[in-house]
Structures are given as C-alpha cells and as structure tokens.
C-alpha cells in the first residue's frame, strides 16, 4: 500500500511540477493512440457498414475473421508487424522499426477489428427498414450511409471507446515495434514497464495513475457525447 500512496503523491507532484518528460510521454501517448483510433475509424466504419449491410459471398466468413481479430493478442500483432518492418523484413526498406509511425500502425491493426465489429453490430441493430426509409426521404447513397452511422452513434462511440481503450492501455505491441525509446517512442505503458524494471515503483505508480486518468478522461468525454445526443 505504501508504494501506491507514494505513487499517488508522486503523480500529483509530477503533474503539478510540470515535469516536462511526463507531459511529453502523456502527450505522445494521447497523440499516437488518437491517431491510431482515428485511422481505424476511417477504415473500420465503412468496412463495418459494408459487412453489416452488404449481401455478398463470404460476408459471414469475413465477419468471423473480424470477430476473431477483436480478441487478437496485441503482442502477437506487434510481433508480426515487427517481423515485417525489421531491416531484414519485407518492409524493411521503409525504415519504420522503432518509430512512432510503427506504433500507430500496430495500434491501428489492434483497434480496427474492434471498430469494424462494433460498427457492424450497431448497424445491424438498427431497424432493417431504415435504409429504405432514408432512400424514400430522398437521401442519396453517401448521405444514407452517413445518416445510418449517425443513427448507430451509440454503438459507434462504443467502438471509439473500445478502440482507444485497447490501444492506449496496450504495452506488448508498443514495446515490440516502438522499442520504448526515450523521447521518441516511449509511451505511458512502456514507461511504466521501465520504471518497474528500474525498481522505481513510485514513478511507475505515478505513471500508472496518469494513464488511468488519461484513459478515463477520454472515455468520460466520449460517454458524455454519447449520452447527450441520445433521447
């Protein structure tokens, strides 16, 4: 218990004293995870919509892959990606190993199945007649898709929360592809691992508390958005 209390004190001290490195790590964490979540939304929403509404061969199989992907161990995703982007790997020429870009890519791969799955589920939960209704109200194809997603916003925001929550709290892939380089790819989770490895448990606890606060704040804002627009 002592370490936790000390950690809480240390967390406040680090935050209040404006510790540049802690703020940089927290900011980087937010930036990388937000970018990855945004990308996975950009790809996952249309894909989820297509899987939910489409009538094509192999739809069920694809959906099964997506559902399996939702539970994919992040560290395996990280490992596979690392093997691709390492110097001797097929994508080695891109020089992505141990860069924030690689971390965004890994987190994108982790979050996208979640976003697709949540989107597909929430679109499928809409009244089946809704697309036809929108068409008869005069909505064109793109407009219809947009309105459908808007109708599914409860589930969509759940998708955002699930995606962001998964990547911001993930350590295995971040460590593997990012390498935990101080000042460039060190994020809150990997910084916690390092602090723990150094035996600096108060610092680890402080970073943990900051991570929890960050994840909670984002989730809280999204939840408020979700609940406000629901009557």
């Amino acid at each position, binding site marked *: 218990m002592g370490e936790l209390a000390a950690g809480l004190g240390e967390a406040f001290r680090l935050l209040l004293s404006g510790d540049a490195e802690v703020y940089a790590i927290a900011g980087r964490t937010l930036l990388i995870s937000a970018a990855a979540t945004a990308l996975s939304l950009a790809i996952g929403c249309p894909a989820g919509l297509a899987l939910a509404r489409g009538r094509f061969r192999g739809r069920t199989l694809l959906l099964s892959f997506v559902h399996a992907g939702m539970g994919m161990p992040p560290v395996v995703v990280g490992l596979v990606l690392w093997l691709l982007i390492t110097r001797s790997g097929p994508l080695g020429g891109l020089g992505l190993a141990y860069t924030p870009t690689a971390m965004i890519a890994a987190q994108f791969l982790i979050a996208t199945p979640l976003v697709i799955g949540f989107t597909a589920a929430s679109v499928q939960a809409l009244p089946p007649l809704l697309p036809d209704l929108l068409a008869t109200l005069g909505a064109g194809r793109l407009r219809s898709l947009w309105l459908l997603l808007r109708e599914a916003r409860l589930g969509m925001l759940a998708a955002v929360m699930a995606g962001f929550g998964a990547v911001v709290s993930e350590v295995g892939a971040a460590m593997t592809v990012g390498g935990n380089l101080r000042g460039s790819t060190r994020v809150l989770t990997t910084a916690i691992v390092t602090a723990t490895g150094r035996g600096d448990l108060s610092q680890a606890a402080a970073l943990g508390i900051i991570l929890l606060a960050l994840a909670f704040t984002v989730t809280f804002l999204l939840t408020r958005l979700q609940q406000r627009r629901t*009557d």
Partner: protein
Amino acid sequence: MDVRVADLTLDRGDRRVLDVDALDFPAGSVTAVFGPNGSGKTSLLRCVAGLERMRGNVTIGGQPVRRGDPRVALAFQESVFLHDTVRANLSLGLALRDIHRIEREGRIAQMAEECGLAAVLDRPAASLSAGEAQRANLARTLALAAPVTLLDEPLSGFDRIGRVRMLEEIPALLATHATTAIIVTHDREEAFRLADRLVLLVGGRVVAAGPAGPLYRSPPDADTARLLGYTVIRLGGRTIGFAPGTLRRGPGEPGFPVVVTREVDMGNHRHLIGRFGRGQGAVTIELRLDPDEPGAVPGEELLVHPTRWTEFGAGTGAS
C-alpha cells in the same frame, strides 16, 4: 406525373412475389391497391419507389425510377424514425429535397395540425404511442408533397374520429399537389373513399384494374368479387355473386334457402346471420333487416334472394 409499370417481376428466393405485365397510374390519379395478405401489395409499392432489385420497368413521367428518387415519397406500414424529435423526423425529407427552412416549418406545422401531432412535435419520436407514430409516419410522407406518393395502410394508426377526418384530408391534400398516389389498403371503405381507381392483386398478379365504381358494380370474376366483399355462392350449376346489402327476404330468382344461426343488433339496424349449404362448402350469409321487419329464431329456414347479382363463368345477369 404518371407511373407506368411494365413486364415487372420480383423474386424472393425461389418465390415469385410479383408478376405484372402492364399497369398504368395516370398523372394525378389516386389508386387503391387491394388484395389479400401476401398478395404482393407492399412489394408493388416498393418497386414503384425504386427500393427493389426487380426485373422490368417502372417509369415516372417517362424516366425510370431509382433508389432514393426524390420524385417519390413512401409511407411504410411500420413507423420507423430516426433517434430525434418528431419535428426533426418530419423535417429530414424536406431538407434532403432542399426545401427552404421557412417553407419546411410551414409544411410541418400544417401536417402536424392535420394529423393531430401539434402537441408532440418536439418530443423524441421514440416516445410516441403506436397511434401517434403511425400518424407522424403519414405526416412525414404527406409533407413532402412528392409528385408520386405511396401510402401503405395509411390509416391503421388512427382512431375512428381521426380516420373519418383523414378520409377527407388525404384526398384533399393529394389533390392540392396534383399528386399521383398509390395507396395499399385491405379496407374496402378506405379504398373507395380515398381512391378513384382500384388495382386488385392476388398472388402477385393483377386480377383487375380500373375505375373503382364500374369495377365494383361488375367484377370480372368470382375471386375479384370476393375481394370486393361480394358473397359468392354456387347455386345449382351457376356461380352467383352479390354485394352486401342486396339480399332480401322471400322467394325470387335466383333465390336460395338460408338456415338462421343468430340475430345481431347493430344499433341502427339488425342483421340476420345464416348459413347456406353444408359442411366444407357452407357460406355465411348476412341479411340486413329494416327496423320494423320481424326477425327469426336460430334454426329457422328462410328463403332469400339478391336484388342485384352477377353470374360468373357463363356470363353475367341482373334482375
């Protein structure tokens, strides 16, 4: 704008749900599509709205209809709304048709008044009662004043008073905008009050189409007659149909015996309910009694005859 349907077929899986050679809805006409459950009425409406992947042609004003066609407005039988207020739901279609905000508000106010929705306009659509939802559903479609308006069982959500009113309002609204309307209904009174033309569908095929009055007065076959509410009986080797209220007590040509099952007091008049024939082929017969006319006891056998009747198969006749 006129609506033309030609060589239309629609399959669901192995089942052919629509098979229509040719069907025209003249510009400004109001047509009631009438038929038993599962006869393809709703499917026909969906085809005209461009919602189905069908084979054949549906044109509006000579141009093929397409999904999301702004020339068509369709009120589905099920009331589906977006997660928003009633007002926003009524407004969406108008906004998608680029109708100016001020006109939008005017039309919404008017439709809300007509359909008894003024008090609930700013409530979430999800909170409406079943009846209110049906009315909002209808109001949303009528507010669009589209050149082609399709209504699927439009009055099922109205109580009797509202229904009587809407039976007058809907034709007036449709006439104001010179709308070509197609209305699916299973209620004969609705069909005649709302529409000037009838299309009768059975098993996905058009069995009769034309102006409502003449079609009713001389149905082309026994199935059509039954759909229109005729009682059809086999009398000797003949098939005879007669409309409700045309039966009188006493012998006549063609006359037949009825075994009375009970007498029903309808308030302003009484009905004798009886049975003609036996077993599987038995037909229920209704005989309207005048206020001072004597009744009958169950089990009593009466002779009755229709004042007007149609004979099918071997030509038609009337007394």
